């Protein structure tokens, strides 16, 4: 049997149709062109000139095929990368890929997650990465979808989060539908987000697409992790693959990055400085990338009997360890003679204060002679336009490397440098730090007691009532801290699913969809998730709740409802008073009143169980219990609590 005889019926018809149609079209075009060729034209064109008559002809064409599509091949590439989810708001520019994932791919690995906005799908991918360390795909519409996703991409970039954003596009003008498809096509879509993606590409063939997807995956996960972007042509995805071409396609081997460790000699020098220091302080920001990170930091801190200041870009140090002394950050950094900074996002702020008064002034707070050691990937993160590199502040010993990957060597070098006498001396320092920990704990209790029975309800009470209800369960935490950071004082944070840092870029609209993404990751591990949502932030992408309901994602959202974008209240007040403008107008444009937003009703509208608004602290615990019962059954719930502003 010949190769052609093996083809299915539709395929034979498809090929035959193409041949007939193309031949007929070419014949007509040529004859029309000859008829209209100007007299005396001595040289023939290499292709026929288009005419109105030729355009009016409709060549014979096929309507269906059983051949695999380009998108089918690309779905196989996604499967090879073991990517579990594609979050997306549906759009025509990637319809071929969507159809392939749900039909050809069986809608599993990846599974399609239905979202109502590209900012939601991308922030979900961000939250998912924070818990799993694996990228999710956010698929977005050409041009307009990219702009919707842009804010969430920026947050992921600043937070060093691996997210793969794929946008549809209609590259070929010859097949582009008239009208809106032109407005939803671009020649360089990557340019729209290039300032805050690490890499982008626009493949022009299927093999190119496969290589770029595997490359995108590898680059996104290489520290410092970052979003990447692919623009995928709709024709490339929708067209069938010719059998002769199918045989040439290969999926590149997927190989994972080995994290770069800092230079061994430099780490030895760092160990020497730390061992000899009288008041060393370890500062960790974006340090921990896996659950091994906190355990290694504990080992280093105990060896050195050195306090750790966790800046909570990630969960770097278990919060109940007595060397975790973040609440003493100010005094510790002022007294330090050596600071070890692990992936700090703002090293200048560790040693300086800036006073935001009419005249902004800054001052150095670190003591003279203090030595700064930095182990960081920051210099690989910097881009020209975005200023998230923060103010330049050179370290005395700057070690380029992944700090978590560098930790085993650093620990080993510290052990080698520690004499028995030095260990004895450090033990005495440790006893003082244990006393400081106890005092810090007493102060936290006193602070938490303030306004315990007040209405609006104190943030401390909300945090502690919730903790009391979940502490014996397998729980996860989504999004950023509640104001006051009480979970850092009183909860038991051990692993990254207990806390994974904030948005990175501080762009509002992140917390709710990101916590839905984190809750999805936690659901896959058999645990439910709790999160504190801010009222102003939640109003950017409230439809995230619908996705949580639709996909049965167990997430308890407790809304910190202070009926304002409260940070802006304080900013406007600051400037108004600075200019002697009076007391009464700062709420204009900064508060969410008249009418109040009823978040419980908003949640109900999206199919989510809800309680609230809760104003009396006595009503809080029963409401949380009822909502948690729903969450433990595998569904989302929301409790709206009228809280103190901070």
């Amino acid at each position, binding site marked *: 049997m010949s190769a052609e005889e093996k083809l299915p019926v539709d395929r034979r018809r498809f090929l035959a149709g193409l041949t007939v149609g193309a031949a007929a079209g070419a014949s007509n075009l040529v004859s029309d062109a000859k008829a209209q060729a100007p007299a005396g034209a001595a040289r023939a064109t290499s292709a026929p000139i288009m005419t109105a008559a030729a355009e009016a002809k409709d060549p014979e064409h096929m309507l269906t095929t059983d051949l695999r599509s380009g998108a089918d091949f690309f779905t196989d590439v996604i499967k090879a990368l073991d990517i579990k989810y594609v979050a997306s708001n549906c759009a025509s520019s990637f319809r071929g890929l969507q159809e392939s994932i749900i039909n050809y791919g069986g809608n599993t690995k990846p599974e399609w997650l239905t979202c109502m906005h590209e900012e939601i799908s991308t922030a979900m991918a961000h939250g998912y990465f924070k818990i799993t360390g694996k990228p999710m795909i956010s698929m977005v519409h050409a041009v307009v979808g990219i702009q919707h996703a842009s804010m969430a991409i920026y947050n992921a970039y600043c937070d060093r989060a691996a997210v793969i954003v794929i946008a549809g596009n209609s590259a070929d003008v010859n097949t582009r539908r008239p009208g809106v498809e032109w407005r939803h096509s671009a020649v360089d879509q990557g340019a729209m987000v290039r300032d805050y993606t690490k890499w982008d590409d626009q493949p022009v063939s299927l093999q190119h697409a496969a290589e770029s997807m595997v490359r995108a995956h590898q680059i996104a996960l290489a520290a410092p992790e970052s979003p990447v972007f692919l623009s995928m042509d709709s024709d490339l995805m929708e067209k069938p693959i010719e059998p002769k071409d199918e045989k040439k396609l290969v999926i590149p081997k997927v190989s994972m990055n080995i994290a770069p460790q800092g230079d061994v000699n430099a780490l030895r020098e760092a160990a020497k400085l730390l061992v000899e220091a009288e008041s060393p302080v370890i500062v960790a920001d974006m340090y921990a990338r896996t659950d091994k990170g906190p355990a290694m930091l504990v080992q280093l801190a105990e060896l050195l009997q050195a306090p750790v200041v966790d800046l909570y870009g990630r969960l770097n140090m278990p919060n109940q360890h007595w060397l975790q002394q973040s*609440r003493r950050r100010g005094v510790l950094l002022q007294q330090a003679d050596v600071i070890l900074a692990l992936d700090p996002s703002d090293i200048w702020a560790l040693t300086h204060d800036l*006073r*935001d*008064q009419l005249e902004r002034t800054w001052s150095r707070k670190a003591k003279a002679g203090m030595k700064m050691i930095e182990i960081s990937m920051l210099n690989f993160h910097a881009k020209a336009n975005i200023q998230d590199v923060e103010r330049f502040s050179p370290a005395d010993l700057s070690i380029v490397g992944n700090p978590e990957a560098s930790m085993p060597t650093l620990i080993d070098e510290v052990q080698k440098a520690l004499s028995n006498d030095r260990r004895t001396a450090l033990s005495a320092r440790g006893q003082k730090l244990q006393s400081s920990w106890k005092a810090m704990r007493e*102060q936290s*209790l*006193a*602070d*938490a*007691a*303030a*306004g*315990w029975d*007040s209405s*609006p309800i*104190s*943030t401390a*009470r909300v945090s*502690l*009532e919730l903790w*009391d209800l979940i502490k014996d369960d397998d729980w996860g935490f989504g999004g950023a801290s509640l*104001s*006051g*950071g009480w979970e850092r004082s009183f909860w038991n944070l051990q692993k990254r699913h207990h806390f994974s840092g904030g948005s990175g870029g501080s762009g509002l609209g992140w917390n709710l969809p990101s916590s839905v993404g984190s809750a999805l990751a936690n659901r896959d591990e058999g645990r439910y998730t709790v999160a504190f949502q801010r009222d102003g932030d939640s109003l950017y992408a409230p439809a995230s709740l619908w996705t949580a309901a639709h996909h049965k994602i167990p997430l308890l959202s407790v809304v910190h409802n202070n009926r304002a974008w*409260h940070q802006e*209240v*304080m900013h406007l*007040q*600051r400037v108004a*008073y*600075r200019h*002697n403008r*009076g*007391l*009464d107008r*700062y709420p204009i444009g900064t508060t969410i009143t008249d009418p109040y937003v009823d978040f419980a009703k908003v949640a109900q509208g999206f199919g989510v169980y809800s309680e609230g608004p809760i104003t009396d602290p006595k009503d809080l615990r029963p409401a949380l219990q009822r909502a948690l019962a729903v969450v433990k059954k595998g569904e989302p719930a929301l409790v709206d609590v009228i809280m*103190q*502003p*901070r």
Partner: protein
Amino acid sequence: MSISKAILALAFASASSFAFAEGAPTGSADAGKATFQKAGCWTCHNYGGTGSAGTGPRIGPTVLEWEGFVHQVREPSNQMVPFPATILSDQQLADIYAYLKTQKREDPKQIQLLSR
């Protein structure tokens, strides 16, 4: 009290207790509560002056003497917004001071969730 002493008092305000100075003007706690709200003191210090990490320390009840209290409000030594007399009169300040003095300090040992 000298300015340096006032600053010293502020620096240790959260950890120590100070007797209120003689000579503080008479203020109305009720009027002070209203002014505390209108002037937006609550935005950083919470309602009742219960305080919050990162925005404003606990000031209800205040541990500052009158002179130190006035100094901190008029010429704050940190990130606090300054409130000149054109914005907040001395009488209004005295009312707020009286209001803050009426606030109670809770004992965490009497709160079940904090005493475990």
